[in-house]
């Protein structure tokens, strides 16, 4: 059992989830707060990682944010090293890759908050920030949890982006899914089965509580 790869994968998923929640919350709040072509365009861009092959994403990160391009060189100045072959590079790639998995549940959750409650709070003198913190966020808590868990598990299973960008460095970019791929390539099927089982169990354990919670959520319209 490749504990180094397991620990690295968990660290990557945790860092990505935390960063993603920081980005997704204001983004989803803005998208959910209105309509219009700008919001529609933003939602489209956010949804792109769902349809783009992960290898394409990884490839563009490798080439377009590499040392040969101006944005890449800027990034190198910022990070102190190129995006590729580093843990921070993987975090950037994972944030983009799992973005829709965090943003979309949040948008749905925010939109489901009864607008009457929001308006009542506003008429009672609450600022938009106060309304968001005290009314919207607590009522949307299930979708916050869903967003975080999905972002986390999606990153645990990430392969294409890591393959294109990682360089397979033990302790820095050799995640569990890469280790699994290598084990298969080495015809080490016993190890591959163990790694695959671990990933599978992990995903099931993470997802079951989400769906259990959904079924007991009395605020659900269809319950």
């Amino acid at each position: 059992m490749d504990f180094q790869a397991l620990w690295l994968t968990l660290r990557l998923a945790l860092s990505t989830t935390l960063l993603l929640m920081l980005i997704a919350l204001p983004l989803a709040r803005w998208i959910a707060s209105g309509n219009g072509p700008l919001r529609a365009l933003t939602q489209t861009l956010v949804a792109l990682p769902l349809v783009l092959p992960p290898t394409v994403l990884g490839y563009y990160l490798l080439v377009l944010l590499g040392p040969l391009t101006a944005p890449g060189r800027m990034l190198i100045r910022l990070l102190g090293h190129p995006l590729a072959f580093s843990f921070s590079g993987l975090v950037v790639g994972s944030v983009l890759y799992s973005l829709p998995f965090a943003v979309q549940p949040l948008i749905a959750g925010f939109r489901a908050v009864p607008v009457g409650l929001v308006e009542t709070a506003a008429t009672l003198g609450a600022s938009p920030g106060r309304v968001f913190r005290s009314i919207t966020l607590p009522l949307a808590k299930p979708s916050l949890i869903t967003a975080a868990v999905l972002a986390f598990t999606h990153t645990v299973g990430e392969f294409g982006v890591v393959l294109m960008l990682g360089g397979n460095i033990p302790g820095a970019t050799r995640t569990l899914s890469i280790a699994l791929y290598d084990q298969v390539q080495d015809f080490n099927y016993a190890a591959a089965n163990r790694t695959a089982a671990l990933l599978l169990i992990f995903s099931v354990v993470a997802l079951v509580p989400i769906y259990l919670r959904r079924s007991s959520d009395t605020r659900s319209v269809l319950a």
Partner: protein
Amino acid sequence: MLAAADLQPVMPSLTAAYEHATGIHLNVSFGSSSTLATQIMNGEPADLFLAADFSFPEKVVAANLADTPAPIAYARGALVLWARKDSPLQPLTQNTLHDDHFSRLAIANPDHAPYGRAAVAALTWMKLYDRLKPQLVVAENIAQTAQFVESGNAQLGLISLTLASSEHFQQVGSFVRIPHTAYPEIRQCAVVMRNSPRRAEAHAFLDWLRSPAIQGNLTKYGLEAVK
């Protein structure tokens, strides 16, 4: 035909020449030798498997899927050190690796890519492996190794001569050969699949590839004749 990634720049010319000579059209898919061997052993239909070494076709033989008792050598590969033309490390010499003025060296995965194995063997022979190990980035196959260097993310790469001497890579960079004595011979071997309905045609192509005329021309593609 399933062919190793290092043959990607080579096969179009070879298959065109063969088609011109015989009228037979060849369909080629590329991948790392290890991936291709795995796929074949799990039932992928193929007529001919051209690998980048001996060990992967040998696995296919051991799985009783080849129609000969041993893999058939068709070429020898060579390892080179490659860098972009605009790299500050140019001109490349036999001392470039020793001097260590770079942060990342790309190699193919030594566990399952023949050129990766050769790269580690060469680094060990040069007594540089332990020192350079923290600077290594490992790619899935030799094509990705070259891509890491070409995109500028790695400053140097140990890649196949076939890739380095292809038109694209000649335009973008230059190489210096790693001495043959530094790594075990990369003996590229092939097997014809026992269950293929086109075994005769597959053998015909392999015989053509091993004929003196073609073997004499292999250096044009970055390969060397098999003795």
